């Protein structure tokens, strides 16, 4: 949003820039009241009110009465009939596809378990078919979808759209997802690392709303992370920034799928946790472990607490480097709540510089398992140019 602040020369271009600023704010945050809109854009409430009125009659925005802190207010969203966007999240063992309108309202969502070591061609084929069936189910056609956002659990070079890691997601190495999926669907496709998308969603719509510097850690089958610096996702050189799962915990530790030794993922990843419980508890899933821990099973509680400790140790390094306003923990393991977060906070506090502001606050993801797919929707939505936003005849 940096260039929005540049004051242009003439009156007309100023109005145009202000209109664009309001539309882009609504586009990013889904829905805002007029007062919040004034706060976010830095425009006066009167200007906001005028422009919103103008854009509503032009069919770009939609307003509805609501209340904030007991006072009447106007809720502003993008008009629903502008089109749809799709988000996809390929996890290690599941696929999630969501379809939303431009006002961030989810109209269809579907989850599908995936086989271990799924391949790019088969996964994308399934996702494309699933999306087509979902679009059908809401009585729309594929051409109404404006853009597709995709998240994958491996580093992605967002400039080329290629997976930039080797061996992290077997069967997907070097896959150019935007081209492969774009050809099938005939739609523009944008891709990013899933933890980056989760971070984006939490900053825009979830637990870290309004924060500028946030670290997001995603603990599930694998362990990933996203860095938000100055309100923007930081990608680094080829998209590997924030990959906290592959920081070394123990130089003599077990060999990781990435080829190095003692990575965080070898202490916190779901397969490792489940293997630890196999001799005593048999075959479990991560959801079973969390459910049993909640029911008081000592072994399951211990495994989750130890995972929290390891996450805290690794997160401490990141917090010392970036001093974020908030650490958000997402992924399936975060469903364990305080059982995971309490030991995480302890380990983090013991390893970060004591500050007058206190230790970095740690919270669970507000969007839960849907964070990544919501981020994919947000990325898709960001690329959509709303026709008429800048060209309303006054």
């Amino acid at each position, binding site marked *: 949003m940096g260039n929005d602040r540049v004051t242009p020369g003439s009156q007309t271009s100023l109005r145009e820039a202000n209109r664009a600023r309001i539309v882009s704010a609504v586009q990013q945050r889904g829905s805002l009241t007029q007062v919040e809109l004034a706060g976010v854009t830095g425009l006066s409430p009167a200007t906001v009110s005028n422009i919103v009125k103008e854009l509503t009659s032009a069919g770009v925005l939609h307003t509805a009465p609501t209340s904030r802190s007991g006072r009447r207010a106007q809720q502003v969203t993008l008009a629903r009939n502008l089109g749809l966007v799709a988000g996809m999240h390929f996890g290690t*063992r599941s*696929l999630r596809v969501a379809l939303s309108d431009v006002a961030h309202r989810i109209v269809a969502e*579907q*989850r*599908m*378990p*995936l*086989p*271990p*070591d*799924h391949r790019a061609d*088969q996964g994308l084929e*399934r996702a494309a*078919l*699933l999306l087509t*069936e*979902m679009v059908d*189910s809401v009585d729309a056609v594929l051409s109404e979808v404006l853009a597709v956002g995709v998240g994958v659990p491996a580093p992605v070079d967002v400039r080329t759209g290629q997976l930039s890691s080797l061996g992290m997601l077997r069967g997907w190495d070097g896959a150019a997802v935007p081209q492969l999926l774009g050809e099938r669907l005939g739609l523009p496709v944008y891709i990013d690392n899933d933890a980056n998308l989760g971070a984006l969603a939490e900053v825009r719509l979830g637990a870290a709303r309004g924060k500028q510097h946030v670290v997001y850690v995603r603990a599930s089958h694998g362990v990933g992370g996203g860095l938000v610096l100055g309100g923007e996702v930081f990608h680094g050189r080829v998209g590997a920034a924030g990959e906290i799962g592959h920081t070394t915990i123990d130089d003599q530790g077990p060999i990781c799928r990435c080829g190095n030794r003692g990575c965080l993922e070898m202490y916190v990843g779901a*397969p490792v946790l489940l293997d630890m419980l196999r001799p*005593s*508890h*048999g*075959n479990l*899933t991560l*959801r*079973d472990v969390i*459910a049993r821990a909640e029911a008081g099973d000592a072994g399951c509680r211990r495994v989750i607490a130890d995972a929290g400790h390891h996450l805290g140790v690794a997160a401490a390094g990141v917090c010392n480097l970036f001093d974020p306003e908030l650490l958000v923990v997402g992924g399936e393991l975060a469903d364990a709540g305080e059982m995971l977060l309490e030991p995480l906070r302890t380990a983090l506090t013991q390893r970060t510089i004591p500050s007058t502001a206190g230790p970095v606050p740690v919270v669970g993801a507000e969007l839960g398992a849907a964070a990544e797919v919501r981020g994919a929707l947000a990325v898709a939505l960001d690329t959509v140019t709303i026709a008429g936003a800048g060209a309303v005849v006054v």
Partner: protein
Amino acid sequence: MTGSTVPVLALLGVSKSYGAARALVDVDLQVHAHEVVAVIGDNGAGKSTLVGALTGALVPDEGEVLVDGSPVTLSDPSVARGLGIAAVFQDLALCANLDVVENLYLGHEAQRGPLLDEVTMEKHAWELLNQLAARVPSVRVPVAALSGGQRQAVAIARSLLGEPRVIVLDEPTAALGLRQTAEFLTLVERLRERGHGVLLTSHSLADVQAVADRIVVLRLGRTNGEFDAARTSYEELLAAVTGIQR
């Protein structure tokens, strides 16, 4: 599975012939509680015969069926149901003109005095469908108005009414679209979480690998390998199904 290693349902050396055609030859199989076992194989590999032997639809020529480790004779499907083994077949056996609640309780309606207790039945129907995370628009619509996936959810919910310990699903995804398959696979995960043992047969390796804990491959009536689903590649399974020597 904590503590108990005795399978809820097991086959021991089961054989079945139809004249000269040997449908099953000396097959062993185990289903534990809280576990999804998939049986895969080509056409004519013996999957349907296996399901028949497990659900009491047919009696094997040789071998034993064990429930909780003790041998039983499943002379017909009602005996199997009585022992906690429920089955959902490909045709689902639902009455298309009846609504969801009527289908669930057909033949064993809840009663209050001389009247049907519709409130209890409807409440319980919603409870079951919600536990399965099944998306049914209303429990008062005729089954004919539901999609293939939703009908399957109703059939599975009906099989859950007697609180079975093992649910046997024969070719559940064969007639489903991808969206409905996605819903079905999620449903199987829910069944597993509820502590049921699940046995499903399928042609689709991708579907099976997505939800199963163990995969048993049948080839020409014989067991051609048993695999840990999380550690077996698609190619290994394919080789076992087709009988390639590796």
